[in-house]
């Protein structure tokens, strides 16, 4: 008679009705003699049957909007839309150069300039903004130190959150890592009264071109701070967008 060990390796194909006839006969012969293997086979068949029967229920439906967000990644994946350092257009160069000069002259630890994100980027960020506010807003608010520590510990995103926004009526209500190009965008959620405000911190090296900014009724304003690009996004008039960007540490030029 086969050992229980030999039979164990054949149990799954037999339970799945995929074993050769000779193997099936060996297993069935053993199961008649061995109560322990018989119980194992019973357990395996019962669990298999249950999951098979419930497969459709278990799969269910993806959340609303996920399909659209997945479809949107196709544009993001197109070669033209994903240079390694995204979208620093020719028009953007003088700005970057000017910023470098400002840095050199002022000798400051960080420099800022206001630039406008491209429409494609703004569209992605707007969809993410809508998703994250619907799923991840913490009504009780969060402490900046807590969010900063969590981003570093959980996602390796090492950023210093701006200190100013509370004074301007902006309350921190969420912080997470979201997807943008190769991943790793810090997404900070703020509330200013009824207005939902997102602050995205792009990976080091990611820059934006200058184009239109209004997408789906939302506006985006970008600035650089500490060597990274920060984007403020909200459904608010342009003057208010600029004011919020200043509160987050942008220096208008």
């Amino acid at each position, binding site marked *: 008679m086969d050992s229980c060990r030999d039979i164990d390796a054949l149990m799954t194909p037999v339970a799945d009705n995929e074993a050769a006839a000779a193997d099936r006969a060996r297993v069935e012969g053993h199961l008649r003699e061995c109560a322990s293997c018989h119980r194992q086979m019973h357990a*395996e068949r019962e669990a298999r049957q*249950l*999951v098979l029967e419930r497969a459709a229920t*278990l799969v*269910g439906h*993806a959340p609303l909007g*996920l*399909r659209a967000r997945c479809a949107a990644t196709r544009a993001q994946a197109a070669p033209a839309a994903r240079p390694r350092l995204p979208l620093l257009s020719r028009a953007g160069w003088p700005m970057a150069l000017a910023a470098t000069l400002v840095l050199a002259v002022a000798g400051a630890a960080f420099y800022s300039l206001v630039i406008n994100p491209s429409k494609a980027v703004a569209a992605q960020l707007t969809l993410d903004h809508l*998703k994250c506010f619907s799923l991840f807003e913490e009504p009780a608010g969060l402490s900046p130190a807590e969010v900063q520590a969590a981003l570093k*510990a959980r996602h390796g995103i090492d950023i210093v959150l701006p200190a100013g926004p509370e004074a301007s009526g902006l309350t921190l209500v969420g912080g997470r890592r979201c997807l943008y190009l190769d991943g790793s965008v810090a997404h900070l959620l703020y509330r200013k009264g009824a207005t939902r405000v997102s602050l995205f911190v792009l990976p080091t090296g990611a820059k934006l071109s200058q184009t239109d900014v209004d997408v789906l009724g939302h506006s985006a304003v970008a600035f650089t701070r500490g060597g990274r690009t920060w984007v403020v996004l909200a459904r608010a008039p342009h003057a208010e967008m600029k004011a919020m960007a200043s509160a987050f540490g942008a220096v208008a030029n």
Partner: protein
Amino acid sequence: MDPAAFEQDALALVDRLFAAALRLTRNEADAQDLVQDTYLRAFRSSGQFEAGTNLRGWMFTILHNTFLNQRRDRGRSPIDADSEAVEQAPDDRQAAANPEELLLRETMDADLQAALNGLPEAYREAVWLRDVEQFSYEEIAGIAGVPIGTVMSRISRGRRALYDDLVTRSGDYARRAGAGDESRARRV
């Protein structure tokens, strides 16, 4: 393959990929990120996909690899310590004493989901790919990047552990139902 056709066929799998992602991450927000990231990678490498071959297997392979990458990026252990310990331990579990009296088909969906979530990751994935997605052993070996023998052993261990968990849950309900309900209590 025509990009529009590829997109349409790939997007038709979103429910299935999300369900599998939810089983891997056990968290809705992470599952959404995982699926979105999976599509991004799939569209990026769509040129490598040959029309007429197994798109579902290809997408699930990307899902599996993306999951491992995301977990690594988030600083979690690349190996599910849980699974490894179980895999190396002898399978000396004792099946329930009177299994034929238990009616697993009465298991509630929520209990089944919880029991699946309680499985070690490698078993959870193998059982899901086999019994929900009905991939062949060879396909699962390709998706998870492990030998076929390991696939079969994971399916087997996973199903048995699932059964044990469900039996325990069912026993708990019967006990809670109390002495007043004899028909239910007798099944324990």
